[in-house]
């Protein structure tokens, strides 16, 4: 077979195996090496809810998809060019993601009778059964080769078998011309205390690359030129890490120490884990006894003058509802991060969805409007968290930040900003006053009250869940209650004076406006580019600010004949827009499968709507 080097703009690789096979790490190392090489990347971990599901079964399959390119890469890609399947179950679960032209790398050592049966294959030919015989199948005895590679290493059998993921990573490095230095440096760091494992892993990695070069089975290698990036210092960042750092940044800018009260919940937990590392930046983290304590300790900390945060996912968010009312009533700054996952109830906890929007907008007793903003990509979580903090503190109110499992766990390269690029945060802190302090007196512009925390002489006052008059006394007066309800609502509404106007990508007017929000941006934006290339008259309004909506929303909508709202739920944002801007007609494209959009599906949905 003639060896070809294929020049291409982009490639999608999907690593899959048993949840103990180290596929998440393999994918991450591949992505990092590609980013370092200068490609644009986007990643998507697709892992099971069980930590160790039964070995070899479909439910135990763990996947990690990496999209690399020399142009703009905004999604982890729909279908893959290369699929790595370490066992029959991984192949069965992931074959549907392989393009018709895909190369599939298999560890044949696991494709024995037992392995095939566990994965539920009915015959001894899984390729015919899955109708993938025509793909480029690379059948390699990866386990055997790894054993051979390490037979003189002195390592025990278990450790040897565990390093087979490095063998397959080496094969991919050859196929895609990736530099190995980054991964070798990683292994040296990771196994600093076990030098034996450093040598072994590096040897397996190199042997994998050499094996790939030697066998004739690999017909093509790929060359993906570095992306023409803006000069500067870059790093890879996941959405959850960016959220944590954005919160730390808001703390630094405001001068208020960060307090995070949280309870572990997938897929939000690593925000708490990340914040817990940064105690030296003044961050205090409290792993609470439950979700309610998470938000209530945060409200207490806000009362005492900290920048208070609680992080959670859907079910935990439900538990916090009553306390959200308390934060609204006491008018204290608080950021609630909800990393959305598939629901209702426990749902599919490791899978992504945008189904908590209604809960964020409405899920409380009484008249209780709360500002809602959403992050649109892994690195954008930094800005979203920073501004959530800024608005919460400057406007003295809770702010809900919605992210999603997809962008929370996904990573992308990020041009490192300087803190001098970010605006100041000036909370309305009061230190003294003439006469008695009136806790619910408001700023005439923002409607924010003053922040007077304990320790300040002469400002002693009481707050709480009971309705109060502006001077802070409990009040059951019907008129006072109605006025206070109106003022709290007005305060949230006035945030629209401080957020940016809604922008439109692509065409600024015409036939069709795609509307999306949150973590689907990569998919709707990529769909927009394709539709534009095909000559469609289409624009994209992707909303970061949900409540209040940007002030020019109606103006943006009025410039298009048709509007299609695309979201990963049954139409929650569409219905919200119908309530807020009833003068327009909204078509919908929805998906509720616990999976991100597929760009081609979005394109098809927009085309169909276009024809209607």
């Amino acid at each position: 077979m003639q060896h070809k080097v294929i020049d291409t703009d982009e490639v999608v690789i999907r690593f899959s195996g048993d949840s103990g096979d180290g596929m998440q790490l393999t994918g991450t190392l591949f992505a990092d090496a590609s980013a370092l090489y200068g490609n644009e990347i986007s990643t998507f971990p697709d892992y099971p809810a069980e930590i160790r599901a039964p070995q070899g079964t479909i439910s135990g399959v763990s996947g990690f998809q990496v999209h690399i390119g020399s142009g703009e890469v905004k999604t982890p890609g729909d279908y893959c060019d290369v699929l790595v399947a370490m066992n029959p179950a991984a192949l069965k679960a992931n074959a549907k993601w392989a393009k018709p032209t895909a190369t599939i790398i298999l560890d044949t050592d696991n494709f024995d009778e037992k392995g095939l049966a566990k994965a539920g294959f009915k015959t001894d030919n899984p390729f015919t059964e899955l109708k993938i015989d025509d793909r480029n199948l690379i059948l390699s005895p990866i386990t055997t080769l790894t054993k051979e590679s390490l037979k003189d290493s002195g390592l025990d059998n278990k450790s040897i078998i565990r390093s087979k993921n490095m063998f397959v990573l080496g094969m991919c490095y050859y196929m895609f011309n990736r530099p190995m230095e980054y991964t070798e440096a990683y292994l040296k760091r990771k196994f600093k205390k076990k030098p034996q494992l450093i040598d072994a892993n590096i040897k397996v990695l190199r042997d994998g690359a050499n094996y790939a070069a030697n066998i004739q089975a690999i017909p093509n290698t790929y060359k993906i030129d570095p992306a023409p990036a803006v000069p500067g210092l870059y790093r890879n960042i996941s959405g959850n890490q960016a959220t944590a750092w954005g919160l730390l940044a808001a703390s630094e800018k405001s001068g208020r120490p960060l307090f995070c009260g949280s309870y572990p919940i997938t897929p939000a937990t690593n925000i708490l884990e990340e914040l817990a590392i940064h105690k030296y930046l003044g961050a205090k983290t409290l792993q609470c006894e439950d979700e309610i304590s998470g938000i209530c300790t945060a409200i207490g900390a806000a009362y005492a003058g900290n920048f208070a945060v609680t992080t959670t996912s859907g079910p935990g968010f439900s538990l916090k509802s009553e306390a959200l009312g308390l934060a609204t009533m006491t008018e204290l700054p608080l950021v609630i991060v909800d990393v959305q996952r598939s629901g209702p109830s426990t749902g599919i906890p490791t899978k992504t969805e945008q189904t908590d929007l209604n809960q964020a907008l409405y899920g409380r007793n009484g008249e209780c409007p709360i500002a809602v903003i959403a992050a649109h990509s892994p690195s954008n979580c930094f800005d979203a968290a920073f501004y959530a903090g800024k608005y919460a503190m400057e406007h003295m109110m809770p702010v809900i930040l919605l992210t999603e499992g997809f962008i929370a766990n996904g990573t992308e390269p990020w041009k490192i900003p300087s803190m001098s690029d970010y605006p100041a945060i000036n909370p309305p802190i009061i230190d003294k006053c003439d006469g008695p302090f009136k806790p619910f007196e408001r700023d005439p512009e923002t409607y924010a009250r003053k922040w007077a925390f304990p320790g300040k002489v002469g400002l002693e006052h009481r707050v709480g869940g009971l309705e109060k008059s502006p001077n802070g006394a409990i009040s059951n007066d019907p008129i006072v209650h109605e006025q206070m309800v109106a003022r709290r609502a007005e305060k949230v509404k006035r945030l629209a004076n401080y957020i940016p106007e809604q922008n439109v990508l692509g065409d600024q007017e015409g036939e069709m406006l795609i509307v999306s929000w949150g973590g689907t941006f990569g998919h709707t934006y990529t769909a927009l580019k394709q539709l534009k290339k095909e000559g469609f008259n289409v624009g994209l309004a992707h909303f970061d600010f949900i409540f209040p909506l940007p002030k020019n929303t109606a103006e943006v909508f009025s410039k298009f004949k048709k509007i299609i709202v695309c979201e990963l739920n049954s139409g929650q944002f569409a219905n919200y827009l119908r309530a807020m801007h009833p003068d327009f007609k909204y078509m919908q494209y929805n998906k509720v499968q616990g999976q991100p959009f597929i760009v081609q599906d979005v394109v098809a949905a927009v085309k169909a709507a276009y024809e209607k």
Partner: protein
Amino acid sequence: MKYTAQDFKSDQEVKWCPGCGDHAVLAAVQRALPEVCEALNYSRERLVFVSGIGCSSRFPYYMNTYGFHGIHGRAAALATGIKVANPTLSVWQMTGDGDSLAIGGNHFIHAIRRNIDINIILFNNRIYGLTKGQYSPTSKLGMITKTSPYGTVEHPFNPGALVLGARGTFFARGIDNDINLNKEIFVASAKHDGTSVTEMLVNCVIFNDGSHKEFSDKEVKEDRTIVLRHGEPMIFGKNRDKGLILVGRRLKVVKIGEGGITEKDILVHDAHSDDIGIHSMLVDMKYPEYPVALGVIRDVADKTYDDNVRDQVIDVTEHAMIHSMDELLKSGSTWEVK
């Protein structure tokens, strides 16, 4: 600055029912605070009163200090957040048997487990007053209430046993109308580093009148209760002639002068002992077999959550390589695009 009780009274009208035990507890707290402030060098603006929901949770409105009237059951979580956010504050949690032992039970035991430096005053009237008379987690078995018209079929909690079960470092008990003893207890609880829990046996004059009366009435109180003070013998009774001794693994009430018992045989109260054994027996004592234990039953020194947080932050900061967001952003694996 020297304070008087008057300095801690707010301008709000006190709305508890006439005859409610809460009035006396409010008075005792307001009388204790001048002494607390002097002993610990606190000024008024450093005091924060936090509560949940229930009759007793109205307390913060009646104090001329910082105050937070929270939601049902969550006072311990709010107080924890306040104390961690600013450890220089003196945080007091006012709560009831419904607030802390039913809906907020989890926060209650975890605050104690962490040994966060807050002062919890648990108003135990063995009834739900604000919702007009349903049984509570401390209502006696068989008690007839609106939701137990044929008598409860539930065993009550003993709050002290919960506190000790969570390895609490401070537990005291008082009766509402004994303002002097309560004042003494509140001062001790404020001086204690860590979570202090004081169970206040309060009378609900409307829905559970006389719930503690078999040992709290003036005529019988001295014979049916014992006031414990660290280092003093466990003697009680109108004539100071009864005491407690240990027989095997059980406490026993004895009469001094009978059966060869002298004052030297009587147990001496050691509130500072880490051993939970005798504290647990004292907490469990019920009338009529025993006198009900009042005063500071347990007051043990241990590291507080706030201390541990502070020490950790100092230690981590000393060794930190990163001192600002800009440094953090550039830390770890990065690459330069030229």
